[in-house]
């Protein structure tokens, strides 16, 4: 009689092998089988094109409809394959257990119960392993490897060697990252608290909160386009002064409000050093809604008795906020702060879209991209330097990870009491 361990082992092996073989083959098979769908869509597009007389060329229409067809079938196939995994593996698990241990129902259910959790968590663990854990460790390894192989610290030379590639850029990136890390979360929290408090005391607060909340749905690049209208410089082709009369060619609102003359043509975010603050403001504009929503909820959670007691004791609104409400939601403020810090460390799109990776506006995240595409930073050592900067980025997150872990532990201890 087989031991139950070996049954479990062989059953899981059979399931894993079946999945590895069956799923890709099914995917490729269905994919090639459904290829005519693209042509059918292209024909349909052509028919629409001819019956409505569209202005674009027929070639574009055909391509676009073929792409829609491709999109639809690949989406459907991808979803089908991921559902197929759970169905097949579950079915195999039951089927194999039945075949292999048909004598005892207890043994059968033990086999099923042991394998089933791994069917459920398996895909998640495999994906996390393949796309986060192993890559992160590999990056660590690459960062300590020479281009030709062999271990070395040379990739980090920009830290101490002023002749190394990326020395200057790294310093600027660190300076800017620190400014972002300090200013953006603080401003978001101050604005978030202010709005949360004020919106509770006026009747149109909900409307105000909705408008302040909406930027959270917008992409950073979209926000960059939006704020370009405010921070832009003069017109693209500044018109010469004629007879002393110059019609306004100022297209940026802020510059017009500041009274800049039309000749001064640079967007505000291109200013040396100070431009960074305009880029930061875009991030503040997006993320304040996040802080506001959480603070509103937290303020509503402050026990009414404490507020009433303070009012009876004669506290004015300011004291009520700073002495009674703020201390009670302080832990929430800290959580929001850590979230914002992690968000800011990852910020990439705003400086990338608006500053074209100018040295003066680099952040650690954008410096990685710059190292890939600029010889003056990356040299011929691109991958290793990329990895080294990624590790520096990781190092800046670690204090927050430790802090967050410490906080969660402390809270769990408090709950335990």
């Amino acid at each position, binding site marked *: 009689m087989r031991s139950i361990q070996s049954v479990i082992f062989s059953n899981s092996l059979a399931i894993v092998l079946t999945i590895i073989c069956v799923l890709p083959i099914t995917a490729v098979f269905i994919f090639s089988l459904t290829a005519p769908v693209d042509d059918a869509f292209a024909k349909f597009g052509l028919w629409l094109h001819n019956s409505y007389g569209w202005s674009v060329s027929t070639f574009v229409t055909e391509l676009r409809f073929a792409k829609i067809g491709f999109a639809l079938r690949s989406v459907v196939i991808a979803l089908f394959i991921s559902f197929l995994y759970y169905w097949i593996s579950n079915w195999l698990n039951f089927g194999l257990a039945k075949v292999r241990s048909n004598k005892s129902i207890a043994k059968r259910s033990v086999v099923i119960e042991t394998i089933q959790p791994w069917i459920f968590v398996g895909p*998640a663990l495999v994906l996390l392993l393949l796309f986060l854990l192993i890559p992160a460790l590999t990056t660590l390894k690459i960062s300590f490897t020479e281009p030709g192989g062999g271990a070395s610290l040379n990739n980090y030379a920009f830290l101490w060697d002023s002749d190394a590639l990326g020395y200057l850029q790294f310093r600027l990136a660190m300076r800017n990252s620190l400014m972002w890390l300090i200013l953006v979360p603080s401003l978001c929290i101050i604005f978030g608290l202010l709005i949360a408090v004020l919106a509770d005391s006026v009747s149109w607060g909900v409307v105000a909160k909705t408008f302040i909340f909406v930027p959270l749905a917008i992409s950073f690049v979209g926000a960059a386009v939006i704020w370009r209208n405010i921070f832009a410089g003069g017109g693209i082709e500044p018109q010469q002064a004629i007879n002393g009369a110059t019609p306004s060619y100022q297209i940026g*609102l802020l510059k017009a409000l500041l009274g800049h003359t039309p000749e001064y043509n640079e967007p505000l975010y291109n200013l040396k050093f100070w431009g960074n603050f305009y880029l930061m403001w875009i991030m503040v504009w997006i993320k304040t809604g996040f802080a506001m929503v959480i603070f509103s909820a937290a303020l509503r959670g402050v026990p009414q008795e404490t507020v009433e007691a303070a009012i009876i004791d004669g506290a004015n609104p300011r004291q009520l906020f700073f002495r009674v409400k703020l201390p009670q939601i302080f832990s929430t403020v800290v959580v929001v702060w850590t979230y914002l810090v992690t968000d800011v460390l990852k910020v990439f799109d705003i400086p990338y879209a608006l500053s074209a990776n100018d040295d003066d506006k680099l952040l650690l995240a954008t410096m990685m991209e710059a190292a890939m595409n600029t010889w003056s930073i990356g040299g011929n050592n691109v991958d290793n330097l990329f990895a080294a900067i990624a590790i520096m980025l990781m190092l800046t997150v670690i204090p927050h990870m430790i802090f967050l872990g410490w906080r969660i532990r402390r809270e769990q201890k408090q709950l335990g009491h």
Partner: protein
Amino acid sequence: MYSRSFAHIILAIILVIWVVPFIALITTSFRSEVASKTSGFWTAFTPTELGHRFSTHDKGQKVKITEMRGNIFDRINKDEEWFKISGEINSIMFKGRVPDPEKPGKTKLIRKLVPVGEVMNVRDGEFVFQANGDFTWSFPEEVAPKPKNLDVFINQDPVFGAEAYFEVLLDNKDVPNALISSFIVVVPATIIPITVAAFAAYAFSWMQFPGRDWLFILVVSLMVVPTQLAFLPILQGFNGLASWATSLKQWMTDCEVTNTCQFPTKSFAGLWLTHTGFGLPLAIFLLRNYIVGLPRELLESAKIDGANHMQIFVKVVVPLSVPALASFSIFQFLWIWNDLLVAMFVGPSATDDIVFPILLERQLGTFGDQLHLLNASAVISMIVPVIVFLAMQKYFIRGLLAGSVKGG
């Protein structure tokens, strides 16, 4: 009373700061190309002086005349479909040669603004125009004048039109392609991680297996790993996979004849998987926190009725977890729709296959001169997420709060 009105004022100022950029975006997208690149969006609502160019008449007119009459507005609006200009003529910029007072017998080139009613010498004829746009151009003898292009400054009435949207959506093939690509990316990259995470979250909360708690802590701690850390190895992995698949295809089919062997390193499928991997930690964390709180009696009674884990999951847990599933799906949807970084490194790089944020980033460069198109394209990119966001606000807020206020 004092503090109450103070609150109104401060909040109103903040609200204005937050809303004005949206007004700028939408206004600019409904303006004409000339207006949007030569004047600020705030001038669109009031009569504003703007420069236009018109030609006095069409080319190829050979009839000899001594006087020509016409209307400047008719000439400007001749081919204009969307932005019919109206208003009041201020001046015309005259560029030409006049007798030089310092050097008798010679001429010099001057530029000057000629006001309404003043006679201007154009091609040896007298050109006079009125504020309503009527002009007369008279010559001393019969000639067939060539058309003349003149720059005119008009105190122009506000005019809006949806031209930019039509141009971006119908004439330019990038924006529709980017919309399709974004949908190709966003649908599986939202549904796959939810499915995977829901199964995992159920296992983490209601199934027994060795190392369960440690694995869960590992998964959650992966939440803070910056995604940049993973790009390079992921790309190398896809690279290896693509070259392997290419040689497999070479070996199995006669693709070399048609030169279609090459599998791309960067593909939609790669982007789906990468987004799935990056989204999983948060998804498992949120869903597990929710599923672990479901009533134990319910699940146990289902078990007693003979349901196995698969049946319990599909028939009991999923229907009860709809709020948590919705709140994660909106996070993931917004994150992927707005993502530039992952799509740039891992996603397809062919111009027809780029997702919207990459397109928008490129348009910031290429449409630097056509702000109306840039802004229209930005509006189009935002419509989908903002609608989803406002419609599912409740779930979004619930998801936000689940991670922070409730002790998490």
